[in-house]
């Protein structure tokens, strides 16, 4: 049987979903697929476009992948657009002059940003916000701009505004309607959102009708409004809605809507049954769906029809939850109360800047819609009430009123959800799908996410999914075992509390009282770390030494060949010429490979075990101390040079970094901890990628927490702003000790935060409002660690007992003959096995 010739015009998010669904269906071999992608980039995540300016790269946003597509056997033509359809001969033509016949054609052409035809809209530095190329143009224009203005205060407009603030521009939003997000929010919600966004420095202008854009006096443009007011700006971004890309349909006689959009039926066929349309270009029941979830749904329906399935598209819920510049906003169902007889409940907290509204049916039994601004935790619960018509509790207002004291949260038990309840709208995952995943062998949240993709889109359903998975696992009788290991029936947090409360000082005592067996490579270092966090004793005492990983035992970092690297502390990255010379001399004397680290210090590689004490004696004589590069402990506080030298610096970041590093050096924790301090918002120290990041402001210091680089990068959350130095240090004391108290073993602060119930707000309550009444205790615990600091290398060099382990053989002074170096780029490196064999066959002078 010959293959069906399938042509897909468009490779955006929905076009990609269509291909993914086709691959998932296992029917790729029935089709000969050609994809036209107008952009030079394959499909990418447009929903998270603004992340491009807060650190994400085009690769991070990518969804389509050339290799994957190739493996699927697709022909993908990028930078090529379908420009014509010959419906009679069933062929398409492209802007490159190609002609290609089809059996079935799928239009996934998406939409384009609407630019109001205001005179001057085509001036330079008037841009739109839809593609990565647009973003590059915006970034280029922003370089010569101080002020940027977004035309349109809807969902996309505010996303675009975030992009401008991320680029460091003074940002204005100009909206025609009387409020922000007019489609999703009412006046109360819009006003609260405006207040919060203005507090972040964005200037909002509502009821502004732009009539002319011409040259400005101070800035590049001047926007002239109908009310006579003007706004000067260097850059204009139009984000005034989208229009379907329906020109192909229009030119070729397919039915289109009055106001645009390719008309489709319930199986996503256009008026020509051989042609489908999906996503933002399609018009179903006179509606365009400008969200990705309904588009994905259409992709699946069209595919189902193509494969003789029976799925149909019956409209989509347009409820949304998002974070706009850190502000939670959600809108569910009939948010404006358009249903006849509907009644509202509203809750406003002007101090905390929270606005919540419920729209219920006349009899008060059914939730019709809701608006949440400032806090949207209940989104998942409320959405389920609305979508499933679940009867509301007797007092529906309890769903939005704050939960104080010992009130039980009036959440919706996941048990109450029907099987059909949609848990994840991005990937259309129902409760039944989740249960099926669990039945087929998934036993953790991560497994379920992997198998169903639930909570991997916008993430709005992650709390609900977690509840559901835990509930189902409990129902199945699966006990979630969080024991540290087979030797201790406790979590790390339990052991921490036991050690603190019972004042246990040794592993043997802990094992005898609370464990069994001999311990292992999991519980020994965990206990060693907790003991050090609590009591801060020397780590190589007879009691402690058997708990340390080799790096801690020898206070250096073991490399692949069994040699070690040495990293002395260089607080804040500030170093005198004399000390720099000593580093060079030591490296030269012991022939060590030298490398500058990311933490602004110097790593000396290739030291043999027996050389470590001599190397350290020289370093300590020169005034160095240990850098703890080997420990699960504070590593470095990276800094920029700060206001002392820098033209832009607003405070002494290097000075603060040195003080912070000296305060927390030696602190052991569940995992390593990295800090950075930047002297201004240019953020040269990259503080937002650190566990603790500090950025100078005109009024003090902004504190960011729980950032991470590495394998899974995470931007730090802005924890508190404009702090004075003392408050900053107190907060950091508390946060770090609370992390040490509550984190899992080997859990970085980023994951700790991701898993913390209540998240950033909860952490603020504990640290700033002191809701757990812990602040004083945490500070005292930190003070103890600070007061008992010792340089472990100095202590070791003074202790002959500890030094006796620093030789390779207990009964010989010979070095390990297996360690062989060769030279590369004027330095040593470990020899490869092949090189070793050659060297041993033909002995040459070895580096000693």
């Amino acid at each position, binding site marked *: 049987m010959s293959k069906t010739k399938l042509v897909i015009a468009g490779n955006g998010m929905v076009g990609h979903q269509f291909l993914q669904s086709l691959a998932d269906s296992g029917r790729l071999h029935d089709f000969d697929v050609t994809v036209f992608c107008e952009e030079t980039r394959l499909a990418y995540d447009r929903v998270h476009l603004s992340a491009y300016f807060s650190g994400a790269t085009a690769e991070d946003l990518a969804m389509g992948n050339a290799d994957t597509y190739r493996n699927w056997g697709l022909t993908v033509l990028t930078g090529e657009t379908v420009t014509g359809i010959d419906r009679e001969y069933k062929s398409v033509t492209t802007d490159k002059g190609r002609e290609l016949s089809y059996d079935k054609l799928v239009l996934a052409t998406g939409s384009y940003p609407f630019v109001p035809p205001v005179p001057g809209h085509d001036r330079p530095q008037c841009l739109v916000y839809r593609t990565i190329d647009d973003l590059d143009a915006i970034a280029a224009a922003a370089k010569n701009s101080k002020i940027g203005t977004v035309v349109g205060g809807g969902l996309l407009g505010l996303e675009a505004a975030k992009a401008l603030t991320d680029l460091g521009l003074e940002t204005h939003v100009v909206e025609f309607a009387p409020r922000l997000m007019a489609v999703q929010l009412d006046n109360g919600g819009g006003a609260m959102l405006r207040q919060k966004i203005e507090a972040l420095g964005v200037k909002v202008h509502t009821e502004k009708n732009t009539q002319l854009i011409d040259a400005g006096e101070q800035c590049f443009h001047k926007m002239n409004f109908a009310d006579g007011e003007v706004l000067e700006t260097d850059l204009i971004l139009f984000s005034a809605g989208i229009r379907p890309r329906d020109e192909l349909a229009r030119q070729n006689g397919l039915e289109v809507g009055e106001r645009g959009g390719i008309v489709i039926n319930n199986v996503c066929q256009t008026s020509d049954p051989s042609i489908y349309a999906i996503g933002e270009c399609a018009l179903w029941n006179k509606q365009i769906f400008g969200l990705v979830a309904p588009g994905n749904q259409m992709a699946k329906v069209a595919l189902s029809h193509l494969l003789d399935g029976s799925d149909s598209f019956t409209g989509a819920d347009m409820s949304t939850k998002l974070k706009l510049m850190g502000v939670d906003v959600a809108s569910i169902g009939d948010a404006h109360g358009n249903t006849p007889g509907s009644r509202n409940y509203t809750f406003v907290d002007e101090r905390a800047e929270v606005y919540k509204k419920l729209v219920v049916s006349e009899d008060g039994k059914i939730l019709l819609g809701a608006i949440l601004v400032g806090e949207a935790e209940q989104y998942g619960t409320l959405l389920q009430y609305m979508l499933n018509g679940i009867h509301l509790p007797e007092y529906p207002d309890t769903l939005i009123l704050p939960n104080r004291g010992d009130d039980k949260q009036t959440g919706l038990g996941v048990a109450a959800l029907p099987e059909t309840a949609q848990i994840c709208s991005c990937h259309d995952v129902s409760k039944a799908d989740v249960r099926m995943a669990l039945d087929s062998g998934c036993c953790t949240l991560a497994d379920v996410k992997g198998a169903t993709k639930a909570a991997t889109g916008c993430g709005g359903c992650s709390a609900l999914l977690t509840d559901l998975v835990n509930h189902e696992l409990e129902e199945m009788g699966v006990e979630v075992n969080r024991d540290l290991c087979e030797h201790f029936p406790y979590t790390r947090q339990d052991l921490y509390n036991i050690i603190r409360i019972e004042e246990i000082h040794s592993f043997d005592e802990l094992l005898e009282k609370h464990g069994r067996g*001999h311990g*292992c*490579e999991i519980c020994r270092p965990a206990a060693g770390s907790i003991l050090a966090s609590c009591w801060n004793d020397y780590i190589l005492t*007879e009691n402690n030494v058997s708990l340390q990983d080799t790096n801690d035992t*020898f206070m250096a970092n073991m490399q692949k*060949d*069994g040699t070690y690297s040495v990293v002395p502390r260089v607080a804040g990255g500030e170093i005198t010429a004399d000390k720099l010379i000593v580093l060079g001399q030591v490296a030269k004397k012991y022939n060590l490979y030298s490398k500058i680290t990311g933490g602004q210090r110097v790593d000396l590689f290739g030291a043999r075990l027996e050389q470590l004490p001599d190397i350290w004696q020289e370093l300590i004589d020169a005034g160095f101390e240990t850098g703890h590069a080997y420990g699960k402990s504070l590593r470095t506080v990276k800094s920029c040079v700060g206001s002392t030298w820098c033209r832009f610096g607003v405070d002494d970041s290097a000075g603060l970094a040195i003080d912070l590093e000296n305060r927390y050096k030696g602190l052991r924790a569940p995992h390593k901890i990295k800090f950075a301090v930047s002297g201004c918002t240019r953020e040269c120290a990259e503080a937002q990628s650190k566990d603790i990041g500090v950025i100078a402001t005109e009024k003090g210091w902004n504190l960011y927490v729980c950032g991470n680089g590495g394998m899974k990068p995470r931007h730090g959350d802005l924890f508190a702003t404009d702090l004075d130095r003392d408050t900053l240090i107190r907060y950091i004391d508390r946060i770090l000790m609370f992390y040490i108290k509550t984190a899992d073993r080997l859990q970085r602060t980023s994951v700790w935060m991701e898993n913390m119930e209540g998240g950033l707000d909860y952490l603020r309550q504990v640290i700033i409002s002191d809701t757990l009444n812990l602040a004083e205790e945490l500070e005292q615990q930190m003070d103890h660690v600070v007061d008992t600091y010792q340089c472990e290398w100095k202590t070791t060099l003074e202790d002959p007992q500890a030094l006796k382990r620093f030789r390779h053989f207990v*009964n*010989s002074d010979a070095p390990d003959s297996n360690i062989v170096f060769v030279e590369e780029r004027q330095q040593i490196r470990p020899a490869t096995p092949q090189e070793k064999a050659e060297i041993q066959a033909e002995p040459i002078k070895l580096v000693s």
Partner: protein
Amino acid sequence: MTTHAHWTAVCSQNKLVPDSGICALIDDQQVALFYVKKEQAVFAIANHDPFSQANVLSRGLIGSKGDNLFVASPVYKQHFCLKTGRCLDDETTQIQTWPARIENGLVEVFF
């Protein structure tokens, strides 16, 4: 030429580190020695880690998995049984072991 194995004194007992390891050179062979406090016993296994090709097993952490005493390689963390040398993570891998004891304050290996 072969010599018969015999108990070889390696070092004095006080060189051992309780619940941890040291390395000895016996006849050009690197031998890791572990003293397990609870058992009051010393174990001798090859110091060479077959996974990383580095001579480092004496620097690993010791522990137990069920009834098996093990050392975890400090490089890639595979577990080696102190009694049999068997790798607990990979059945096809086994390293050499030797009988070891403490006699008159000396650590002896049957080598």
